[in-house]
């Protein structure tokens, strides 16, 4: 269990870390209500995929299915496959904890652990999974640098995680996710609780991380999707009560300039949603 996190010992080998993630015919239910139907999406390594669409169309549910966080909710069920570099994460080969360690997640609202200092927050994933680390200081510095906040906090490690501003807390959560060396990073509207300046810093962080790791981001902000992603998937619930479906998957540039589906055009030009 301790040796299964790839690249943990070699700090430099970060760009070999990314993995591709392929969702095949994923459907999801909450109790008896079907919320997603047959969603198929390829998320290639070292690319940023943005999931866009109006509220309640299943983007976040789809994202949570990608690292088995969907099943944490009572009554949640899924069908279909999610393949991480050839391994079906629902196939039973990997326990859920291992899947989540490889596919990290950043949430809508920053959630640093209040009982831990900034330093311990970064190392929290390793402590929670009981993975020994040889050089903690180096790892903390590297993760905070990659999250773009090293200079802001290097003199205040021992302070509580809650003493930071909202944007800093969110970047601390990104650093915390990076510390377990995930191969994919999922972000569920990471900037929706942040002010424009913090949003810009987080977007810069995403841009810096993009060559090293596979990123999937849910966003309501279409300018953000256009800025940070190279590929977009458009989710839509066509009629009230129906499950959400993927309407179009395309390169971001094409998606916003010449989408293939008329519904996508309506959405990205702001005619509804």
């Amino acid at each position: 269990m301790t040796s299964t996190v790839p690249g943990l010992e070699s700090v430099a080998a970060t760009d070999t870390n990314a993995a591709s993630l392929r969702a095949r015919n994923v459907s999801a239910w909450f109790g008896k209500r079907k919320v997603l139907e047959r969603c198929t999406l390829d998320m290639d390594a070292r690319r940023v995929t943005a999931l866009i669409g109006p509220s309640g169309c299943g983007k976040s549910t789809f994202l949570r299915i990608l690292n088995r966080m969907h099943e944490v909710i009572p009554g949640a069920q899924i069908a279909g496959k999610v393949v991480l570099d050839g391994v079906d994460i629902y196939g039973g080969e990997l326990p859920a904890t291992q899947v989540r360690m490889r596919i990290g997640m950043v949430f809508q609202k920053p959630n640093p652990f209040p009982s831990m200092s900034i330093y311990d927050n970064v190392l929290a994933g390793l402590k929670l999974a009981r993975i020994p680390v040889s050089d903690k200081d180096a790892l903390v510095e590297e993760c905070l640098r990659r999250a773009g906040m090293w200079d802001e906090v290097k003199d205040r490690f021992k302070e509580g995680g809650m003493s930071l501003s909202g944007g800093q807390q969110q970047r601390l959560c990104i650093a915390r996710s990076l510390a377990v060396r995930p191969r994919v990073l999922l972000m569920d509207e990471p900037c929706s609780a942040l002010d424009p300046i913090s949003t810009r810093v987080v977007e810069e962080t995403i841009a810096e991380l993009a060559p090293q790791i596979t990123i999937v981001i849910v966003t309501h902000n279409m300018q953000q999707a256009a800025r940070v992603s190279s590929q977009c998937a458009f989710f839509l619930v066509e009629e009230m009560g129906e499950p959400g479906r993927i309407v179009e998957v395309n390169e971001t540039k094409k998606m916003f300039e010449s989408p293939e589906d008329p519904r996508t055009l309506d959405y990205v030009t702001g005619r509804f949603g």
Partner: protein
Amino acid sequence: MTTETPTTVHERTTVPSKGPKRMRRATALEFVGALAVAAGAVIIARSTFGLESLLGLVIVGYLGFVATIALVEVIGLPHDEVSDLAGEESPAPALQAVPDMDESPDLPVRRRKIKGEDVAEYLVAAIGAIASAELIRVFLHMDSLVGVVIWGYVAFLGLFFVLARDRLSVEAAVDRVVSVFVWSVGLIVAATLVWMVSYVVVKGAKALSWTFFTQDLSKVGPLNSGGGAKHAIIGTIEQVAIATVAVIPIGILTAVYLHEINGRIAKPVRFIVDAMAGLPSIVAGLLIYTVWVSKYGYSGLAGAFALSILMLPTMTRASEEILRTVPDPLREGALALGAPQWRLVQRVVVPTALAGLVTASLLAIARAIGETAPLLLTAFGSTDTNYNVTHGPQSALPLFVWSLIRLPNTRQNDRAWTGALVLLILVFVLFASARYVSSRGRRRLEGRR
């Protein structure tokens, strides 16, 4: 007497800011009230102060009438601000640029300042209430103090309402009466507590001395001085410590099962815990008496078992409530990092809730430390110091108090009061530390260290 009324009506009609309808009602009430005060003054003067001469009574009545009318008029006079707000004739202020604010002092404005009229209103209502209570006492021959106080209180609320309605409006009057009522309820609770605590402190301070903590009652006769509660203090500490050590882990683990795991039998377990919380404490004592004491005899350990039964539901439910306050996003964050659930509970949930869990434990201890009934049948009580918790009768502070207060002997009774005082101090220290720990925990969760 009747010649007074037209004057008041005339005076009132000259007041520009009041509507005619409301004014008439208020004047009639004033008149009736003044008559009542006059009659009350006559009756009180006669029966309470023994004034018998007719002239004297007439003078008292007249003075009472005039004084009441005058007071109500003074209170009812329109204040500048009030007439500005309610005045129909005052022209709407012309629009103008923001006035030069430099002249007004840059100080916070106290909008709820108590003004002179307010004080007068309270005073008049209080005087009226005392008079009404006196009237009721005289007429109904009510001799109980509690009855008179309740009547006086009701009269106070009524008079206060009428006065405030007259001066302001019905809504404002209801608001004021309700706030007076809520204030007085709070005062009653606070006063009861202060009275109870000071009673115990005064009574208990008599026999309080150093020897109270260093001696027991084994060699002290009922009439001798000296002696103390060393045996009871040791018993309480040992029994409560054992019960605490047993209950805290079981209580917290049960709470973790109920809230974090929420498994199949969570509902029945929660039901049983709730039922246990309502268990009469003597039944806990009886249970231990049957299954333990009848075989192994009285002991402090048996007492600790009985206390554990009483502490467990308090501890469990309080801990569950505390775990409920840990935000779910923290659990999701930990799970998303690849944490197994037991590590999540151990490293995130429990540390985040730690201050609350400490508070829950301290409150459970405070509940158990004053229990008497379950100890009667288990620890039994003794006058000797018994360090051995596993064998032989052992005393405890509540048992010490209970056994000594029943004796017909002031010296023993004084010791019982001192025992109660020591118990009270122990509980107070526990509560104070609970408050301290929880306030520190809250500060940390809010990001201040």
